């Protein structure tokens, strides 16, 4: 892969489990053109998205304080963040169900936490526009 042709990208990851953030950051940082911004605080996620305007948002669903669906709705209602691709990463859905629905559940893009890690990373990379 020729790294010069790849545009640098920022990925925002939201998950209230810090271990998940560390894991994904470590795996994604292998790709030099990717910058990962991670937050375990769902409420801070909106402000971060508005401020940094990431190229992709990866977000857990089942979180305390504010769930992933609410974050998605709020970002979609704002002109600045409306167009940013948004993916749910959740253990609420089985990997097979996601696969059967070609990567979406109820019209939303979805990755199951039960998928093999390399597949998850692959799906995230692929989703970067």
């Amino acid at each position, binding site marked *: 892969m020729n790294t010069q042709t790849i545009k640098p990208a920022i990925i925002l990851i939201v998950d209230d489990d*810090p271990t998940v953030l560390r894991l994904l950051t470590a795996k994604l940082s292998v790709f030099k053109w990717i910058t990962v911004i991670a937050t375990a605080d769902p409420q801070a996620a909106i402000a971060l998205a508005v401020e940094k305007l990431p190229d992709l948002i990866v977000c857990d669903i*089942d979180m*305390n304080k504010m769930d992933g669906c609410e974050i998605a709705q709020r970002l979609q209602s704002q002109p600045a963040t409306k167009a940013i691709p948004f993916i749910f990463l959740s253990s609420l859905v089985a990997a097979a169900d996601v696969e059967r629905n070609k990567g979406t559940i109820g019209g939303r893009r979805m990755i199951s936490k039960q998928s093999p*890690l390399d597949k998850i990373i692959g799906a995230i990379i692929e989703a970067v526009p």
Partner: protein
Amino acid sequence: MNPSPVHERDMNDKQTSQQADVLVVDDTPDNINVLREILGAAGYKIRAALNGNLALKAALAKTPDLILMDVVMPGMDGIETCRMLKANAQTREVPVLIISALDRTQDKLRGFEVGAVDYISKPFRAEEVLARVRTHLSLREARQQLEKQNQALRDAARLRDDVDHMLKHDLKGPLNAIIGYAQLIRETDSGEQTKEFSHIIEESGYSMLNMIHESFDLLKMERGTYELNPQPINLVALIQRITVESRTPAEKKQLTFATTFPSDENKVLLASGELLLCRSLFHNLLKNAVEAAPAGSEIAIHYELADVARVSITNQGEVPVAIRERFFDKFVTSGKVGGTGLGTYSARLMVESQRGSIRLDSRTAGQTTLIVELPLAHANGESAAMQPAKTPSVQTAAPALEPMPPTTHLLYADDDLSNHTYIRRILDSPTLKITTCANGLQAVKELFTHRYSLAIIDLEMPEMDGCTVAMQYQRELNQYATDATISRTYLIALTGHDAPSIRKRCLDCGFARVLTKPISPNDIRLVVQHQIAVGDFLPLALPTANNTMEVDPILAEIIPEFIASRVEQIPELKAAILAHDGERVRKLCHQITGSCSLHGFPTASDYYLEIATAVEHGNFAAAAAQCDALPAYWNSITLDSIPPNS
């Protein structure tokens, strides 16, 4: 923990090709020095001998990988030396290269006649010597590998033959009983006796089936690849059951059994082992004792609680002096007609596979004692690691005076009847009552007429499939069982298709667990054993030994941190469970479940989900018990880095 044999072999190969041991035989020290330089520079290890005699001695002291041999030497010449080397079994396979100034064809032929593999003419060129040495070394290596493989194949074939032979021998016993009692039934009219005889026939059928299953295990044990799954076993109860079964042959010889217990109050001896192994082990030993004991004598069974669980079986027969030393070796038998001698051998395999020992005591004239020692079953301490999972087991809390756990009632529904006997066999336990049925309608009926603790239900059945059974059961239960304390049956689905979607469908229908066919005896025993131990709930077993995990180097620091963070989280989870905060437990468990599968711990992921399920069912006690098993699991994981490109 297990050294990899492949890896070891690779190391050896490397050693031979890099550091091959070459013996140079020449009466001229200058020649030796030249060869030493050439070969030494190429990395070979050189030994030298100045004449044929010394060469023979050197070769016998340590077999070289290759010999370079001069022909014209004082005393024994090179041709003669070569002949001697080829005559000796130890050195026969070592390739001999002759180096000689005699280069007429008949000189060369003489060398080949006595077994040399090649002939190098003097004066030689360094490149030629090296090339020929290299060629013959690699040929030898290839030959050795082939021979090794052949030997392994021969061993495997021999072992298969042995087990085959043993099976045929051992199967005769129960088969005779089946035939004999079937005849007796035909001849007797008494209903009571018919019942008893049919029971014996059934038992014999089971023991044949058992032997067939066991033969595979024996092969594994002999190869050292058997995976032990120990559980606490009350040897007293087990052996008493076996003596009841072998009553008939013992009665024929008017033998009596005398039993001594660890103490008068304590009639329980808990060992750590596998029920099936112990069963056939003691079955074998008792059968031998009955056969060896003279008519009208007494067989003494002595139970002893020491740092091990010890069982001594004494009969008044004598083992011939000639075979005492080799009593537990393969093919040793004391003149039993048709005996292959594998009985005691397989007994030894079974004991040793359970980390125990067996020995023969024939010091007292006129009697034979077999002493079996098995590890004690402990609730905690060092041997906790040997238990499949730590559970608050009733049996192991205090070995003394502990009553047997209450009987668990299990329903098994499967349209394949051959599985019925299989299940009965592998789950055979005095504390488990098994009912079987062959279709879904019957299963539903059974579930509502009896109180089963758990039901294993095949998904693909005629009349009504497993999922429908589960849904009907759950629906009825929710409708009528307003009393929350009513004991519900835990349903386990059995399916031939291991697809996540099927798994999910099963859980949605109300199954607590999905097992995939073919079911390994260990899997199903673990499931049932935990049901018995915990009583009302069915936790997934978490392995607490041999948890080695390969770690991506990128994650070398992250994974240990992750494990530590999961351990730190346990008190929080436990507190939520104890506070009966269902929503908090559910959230925590779902979060951890996701993180566990992300980090490569699918077993733990399932386990946390089960804790959430238990809480959803209102079963906080079981959830707490499961929570308690977590630290041992996380702490037992060892990490192994894998090289980046593997």
